[in-house]
């Protein structure tokens, strides 16, 4: 489609405005984490690392970071395992109720966090009688983190030629060898992408966490919520927010970069061969 000059200008301006609207508040948080002025007056009075130092020294913050990382890593691992198995079974085999199971697997990511949170809280405390802890948070997160892995893996399986596994068996490989040498390498980047998304999803999750976390435990988002309105903690909250932003963005950025790289690498190989 050919665009007129004025259309290009208008679209450019709109794009810039939207991006500014989204990213200026985030940038403000980053800037304020270095702002020497306690009340965040604008323009910033000066540059300081005081809040960062305070945040690092605060045992509450350190504990929250570690809890968040632990929860995100463990729920990602569970999601990788269950999501992959689900994708394999739902894509490879036809059985009664397959479509319903497929829907039920994806549903948790669409459900409102409040509903999931209340339901799981009720399940853990009233029905199962399990004390709430970080483990209950892990299980709660896994219910929807699994979906990102599942979606990535099943999309890859659909694109993968079914002939590959047959070819492997045809050449003499047993089931385990075939999975190891053929199926898994095909799924690797899908697992990475799904896993990184699951990690990012879990790391900054707050609603479901609120309902499923044990007394006395805090994850990073919970810590922010608890300290947001304490005036003396406000600067440290900014620092924690920046940490959250970075830890959430890096996996997404990595996932994009990895998929971009694989294209460039193969392109470079063509040139090497032609020499």
């Amino acid at each position: 489609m050919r665009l007129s000059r004025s259309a290009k200008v208008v679209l450019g301006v709109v794009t810039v405005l939207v991006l500014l609207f989204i990213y200026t508040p985030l940038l403000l948080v980053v800037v304020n984490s270095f702002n020497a002025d306690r009340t965040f007056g604008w323009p910033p009075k000066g540059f300081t690392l005081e809040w960062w130092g305070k945040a690092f020294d605060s045992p509450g913050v350190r504990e929250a970071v570690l809890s968040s990382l632990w929860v995100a890593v463990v729920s990602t691992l569970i999601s990788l395992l269950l999501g992959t198995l689900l994708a394999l079974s739902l894509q490879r085999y036809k059985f009664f109720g397959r479509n319903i199971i497929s829907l039920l697997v994806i549903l948790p990511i669409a459900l409102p966090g409040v509903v999931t949170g209340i339901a799981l809280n009720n399940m853990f405390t009233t029905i199962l009688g399990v004390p709430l802890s970080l483990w209950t948070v892990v299980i709660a997160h896994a219910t929807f983190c699994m979906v990102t892995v599942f979606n990535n893996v099943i999309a890859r399986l659909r694109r993968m030629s079914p002939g590959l596994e047959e070819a492997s068996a045809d050449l003499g490989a047993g089931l385990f060898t075939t999975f190891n040498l053929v199926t898994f390498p095909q799924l690797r980047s899908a697992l990475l992408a799904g896993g990184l998304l699951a990690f990012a999803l879990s790391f900054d999750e707050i609603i479901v966490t609120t309902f499923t976390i044990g007394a006395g435990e805090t994850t990073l988002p919970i810590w922010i919520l608890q300290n947001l309105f304490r005036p003396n903690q406000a600067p440290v909250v900014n620092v924690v927010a920046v940490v959250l932003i970075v830890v959430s963005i890096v996996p997404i950025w990595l996932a994009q970069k990895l998929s971009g790289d694989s294209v460039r690498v193969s392109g470079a190989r063509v040139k090497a061969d032609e020499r």
Partner: protein
Amino acid sequence: MTETLAAGTSTGTEEVPAIRLRKLTKVFGDTVAVNGVDLDIRHGEFFSMLGPSGSGKTTVLRLIAGFELPTSGSIELEGKDVSAMAPFQRDVNTVFQDYALFPHMSLVDNVGYGLRVRGMPGSQRRERAREALDRVQLGKFLGRKPAQLSGGQRQRVALARALVVEPKVLLLDEPLGALDLKLRQQMQVELKELQRSLGITFIFVTHDQEEALTMSDRIGVFNNGGIEQIGTAHEIYERPGDIFVANFVGTSNIFDAAQAQALYGRADPLCIRPERLRVAWAGDPERRSGITSRPGTVTSFVYVGHATQVRVQLDDGPAVVALVPEKLPGGDAELVNGPVTVSWDDAAVVWLPARGT
């Protein structure tokens, strides 16, 4: 005729066949894909399974490879029953229609895969893979990935990968279907030469009758999950066993039972190939014993390079196609709708009795 129709059961006891199928049947849900196929394929034979799509030929191949298990019947490989074995336990290898090369592996790793899973050490394996790639003229591209190759090159890699493990039987599932005409003809020659030099039994699935005719030692013509006829290319073309084979392999002029009755006094359908018909444009038709002549009207003609296909509506018979190698005595205006006489040697007639007689 009868022995070819009896689906090759008459090979005798002198030799154990490379592949022996007995009453092989495969049912998918309500569909009978393969219906009681009996077939013996000899050692070192280039055997083609020819048929339209859905005729069961690919399913038979997949049953031999072990990707599907038969509903009933048996598959013997060199006298050993392999019906219930997994693909990796069978000494046959497949060249897939879409090649199924491992996209994450270089060519040398693709070709060395079968040796790797058999536990051959790395250096020896790479050496063998390199030799196999050299044999298909791809020795220069060892480190490339399949995505960096053309279709014809991928086809060769798939061939090298299947042959490097020295199977007893090589199964080829329409391997040339994705190639353009020139490349396909070149690969037909190469495949045939390769098969002759290696002496391995090839089972070649195709829906292209020309491909089957040019490459095969024997052909099995499939239809509706069964084999209609087994024979050499010459037998299949010159002596088709029934109307299906006559129509599917080459072009045929079929006279139904009533028309044949009028001509020869025998109530069976018959078939005559277009190149066996002669067209007399004017004057007296040939009148000799052993020659039949019938008047008709030219409806159209198509120039095909080495000859011209002339369509003639016989006055008391079907519309026929005659292949006329010589130059026609005029153009469209003079010839179309003009009266002609079509004649043929009675010896060129092939009777197509109905099944079961």
